[in-house]
């Protein structure tokens, strides 16, 4: 079930009614939420609920046995068991076909013609997200950052809680499990602001991402013939930067709003990323829950910055390469991650080299624009389905394409430029504050007017119920 569907509207209305009904005990309400979350997930493909159960049960017991273990080796064994089961499922469903294809290519390159049976496995929606969420549970317990949950119901609800289940924000057990301990019921203000966040999120997704930006991106990136002119290639890439932000940040805002309407708090996942100055800043603002997960459970265990420059750069690059692969089973995603790793490494070196330099306002803006420019280069690999496609786009963007043709009509192009310009401008205007501060400082009539316009635009756009881009990850 996706947030931008009528099915979800009905589902959410029922969940809200059950959750705020006074005749259910808190225990019963949690069971209701658990059942609702399974239904939410099963609405795509019912059999895959089994994967959720496996992940839930294995990690629950792994954490329990970890705590009871006397020997450090036994603790480690249970931690490894959890990692192997979770990563094993992820590897099988998400990377099985990719690994097989690469093996076949490798074999062919040394003259061995191997034709395996077709790998016809459907990718369970959101498996990367809930795998990371459950892994953080056993890893936190193993690292002694948290005690295991006391009640299985609270833990199972943490894993499956539908607002974050399929596309994040990737929650840690310490963020959510405690919220299930006591009865939670949203206040009227929480429900209203939660609905406002849902409107904002759906506007970003349905109107901006799907309605105005996606057609521009598809027209160029999915063109069957012809090479785009420089202008078309740049507009399409900028449009994709807006599309993926509106798509994913829209999902996160909606998820946070949905949880808020139920009385739960979820963490920020975006902090106006296109106003980032530098790449370490970018990753503190973009998909925060993933970048912090990778930092805490991959980069730091790999050595972080405590074992000399060589180890640091290796850990940085390794983390970003794996982060790229997390997004999709394709080498283009690996390159995307590799580029970000390279940017981070270069930035780190430059910071050390020019440690005494404090940039002025003009330099901040210049570095911010440079960051945005370089981020857009990485988006080419993220969006292009093949390296050939990416190379074509980069050549066009560099103005060296042979016989390029115009592809985009004027008005769609202008709409995309205005929207993306608006997004980047808003990010810069908001880079040192939260959405809540900005809303509080805006006159009520304007807040109401903007929300009203967004609501009407969502209805007028109708939406085709297209899935969020990050579902495929």
């Amino acid at each position, binding site marked *: 079930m996706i947030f931008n569907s*009528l*099915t979800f509207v*009905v589902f959410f209305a029922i969940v809200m009614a059950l959750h705020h009904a006074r005749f259910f005990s808190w225990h019963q309400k949690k069971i209701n939420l658990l059942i609702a979350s399974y239904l939410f997930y*099963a*609405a*795509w*493909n019912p059999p895959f609920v089994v994967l959720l159960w496996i992940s839930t049960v294995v990690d629950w017991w792994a954490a329990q046995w970890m705590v009871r273990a006397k020997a450090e080796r036994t603790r480690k064994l249970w931690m490894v068991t959890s990692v192997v089961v979770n990563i094993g499922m992820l590897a099988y469903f998400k990377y099985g076909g990719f690994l097989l294809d690469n093996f076949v290519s490798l074999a062919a390159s040394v003259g061995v013609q191997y034709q395996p049976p077709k790998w016809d496995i459907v990718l369970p929606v959101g498996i990367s997200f809930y795998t990371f969420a459950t892994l953080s*549970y056993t890893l*936190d317990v193993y690292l002694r*950052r*948290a*005690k295991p*949950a006391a009640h299985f119901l609270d833990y199972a609800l943490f894993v499956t809680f539908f607002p974050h289940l399929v596309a994040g924000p990737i929650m*840690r057990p*310490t*963020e*959510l*499990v*405690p*919220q299930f*301990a*006591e009865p939670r019921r949203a*206040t009227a*203000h*929480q429900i209203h602001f939660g609905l406002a966040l849902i*409107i904002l999120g759906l506007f970003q997704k349905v*109107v901006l991402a799907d*309605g105005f930006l996606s*057609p521009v991106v598809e027209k160029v990136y999915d063109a069957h013939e012809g090479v785009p002119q420089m202008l078309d290639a740049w507009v399409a890439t900028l449009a994709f930067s807006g599309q993926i932000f509106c798509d994913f940040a829209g999902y996160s805002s909606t998820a946070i709003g949905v949880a808020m309407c139920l009385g739960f*708090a979820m*963490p*920020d996942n975006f902090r106006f990323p296109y106003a980032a100055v530098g790449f370490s800043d970018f*990753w*503190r603002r973009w998909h*925060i829950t993933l970048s*912090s997960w990778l*930092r*805490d459970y991959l980069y730091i265990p790999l050595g972080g910055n405590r074992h000399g420059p060589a180890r640091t750069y290796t850990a940085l690059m390794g983390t970003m390469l794996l982060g790229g692969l997390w997004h999709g089973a394709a080498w283009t995603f690996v390159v995307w991650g590799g580029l970000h790793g390279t940017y981070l490494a270069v930035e780190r070196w430059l910071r050390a080299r020019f440690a005494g330099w404090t940039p002025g306002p003009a330099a901040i803006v210049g570095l911010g624009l440079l960051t945005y420019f370089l981020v857009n280069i990485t988006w080419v690999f993220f969006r292009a389905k093949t390296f050939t496609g990416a190379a074509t786009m980069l050549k066009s963007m560099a103005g060296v394409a042979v016989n390029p043709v*115009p592809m985009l*009509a*004027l*008005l*769609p*192009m202008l*709409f995309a430029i205005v929207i993306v310009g608006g997004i980047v401008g808003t990010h810069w205007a908001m880079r040192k*504050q*939260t959405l*809540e*501060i900005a809303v*509080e400082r805006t006159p*009520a009539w304007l807040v*109401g007017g903007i*929300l*009203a316009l967004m*609501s*009407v635009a969502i*209805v*007028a*756009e*109708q939406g085709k119920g297209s899935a969020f881009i990050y579902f495929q990850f």
Partner: protein
Amino acid sequence: MPSSTSSSKRRRAPAPKGIVTREGALPAGLRLTASDRPGQAQPVPTRDIPKQPWGKIMIAVAATLLAGVAALEVNARTRLGLHAGDLDNSEVAWVEERARSENAPAAIVGDSRILFDTNLDRFQALTGVRPVQLAIHGTSALTLLEDVANNEHFNGLLIVGLADTMFFQPFDGYGGYVKRRNDFTTPSGRIGIEIDHMLQRRLAFLDSNYRLSVLAHRLDDDYRPGVEGPKDDIWKVQEVGEQRQTWLWDRVEYDPWIQARSRWAWKGFKEKFPFTPQLIAKGQARAKAAVDKIRARGGDVVFVRPPSAPQLRVNEEAQVPKAKGWEVLLSNTHSVGVHFDDLPASVQNLTLPEYSHLNRRCAIVFTDAYVRRLTELTPRLKLRADAPPPLSRADCVPGARVASAQ
């Protein structure tokens, strides 16, 4: 050490109190996030509620939304000529009909011509059989014929409607999604379409052809040289009822501007690629294999060629001549077929407002004619004793009184 079970000691969520300065060294108003707390257990997030008169704001939003929906609906009905009950096209609806076609006595596949030009009520009134409509606009009938051939559960009569060029084109077209139909069988998809249809039966403005972004993009009057803009896309031409009963949108008939746009969009059916003898032969071979497969399990296949206006026909004939396409298809597959050329003079020269599809009334007349002919050609369809009397061209002119099921 923070505990994930320590929530029992936590206070109840505080009442909204506006923005507060949060932990850490960030400027006032900025919240810390996980990115600011490396290598530690993350605490329960804090979410502030901005101080605003939220109750009043939400009432205003709801009122504006209602007014907006009302305005959209009035505009759709009075200015755009849209009708409630137009269920729009959807992949899920096709997949549901496809499931219904299993073990059905008859089904129809093909492109938009057989889709628009067949009236299911008339078909049923004549034969007692209501075929399952599986045709898809902009799609090669061959793709759909092969899909049915691969459906082991179908052993009824398959009516293949075709436009010659689209039949032999080297790609599936719009309906390529039938090859990944499992993507559209999710429970949420099925529930979603039920809710969609429930609303579309009552609201006219819910039409994907008139979405906000589509309208905004179509304002582009080909301003950029060398680019075919969104205005050049195919605009709305059809309405869809229950069980995918589809007909030409009446505005295409009465609005000269929309009609001209639709005619222009077909571009005379002048395809960009050559219909080489090899391409046609490949299509013929695929068709024969599919037909043989259906017959091998007890089913049967007939072909129907709905009409097109001379303005299109001349180009279609130039690319795939009837003698090389249609006639070879029938002989190769040992099938019977109804070509509109062969129908009685009383049903020739039916009204094709945008050259490619019959208007709604003429579709009933054409259905009447081709189904009667089919009952003579195949024992799988029988004319009912109480079948309504034959129709003619006179019944499809405006003002003629003819009901599809009479």
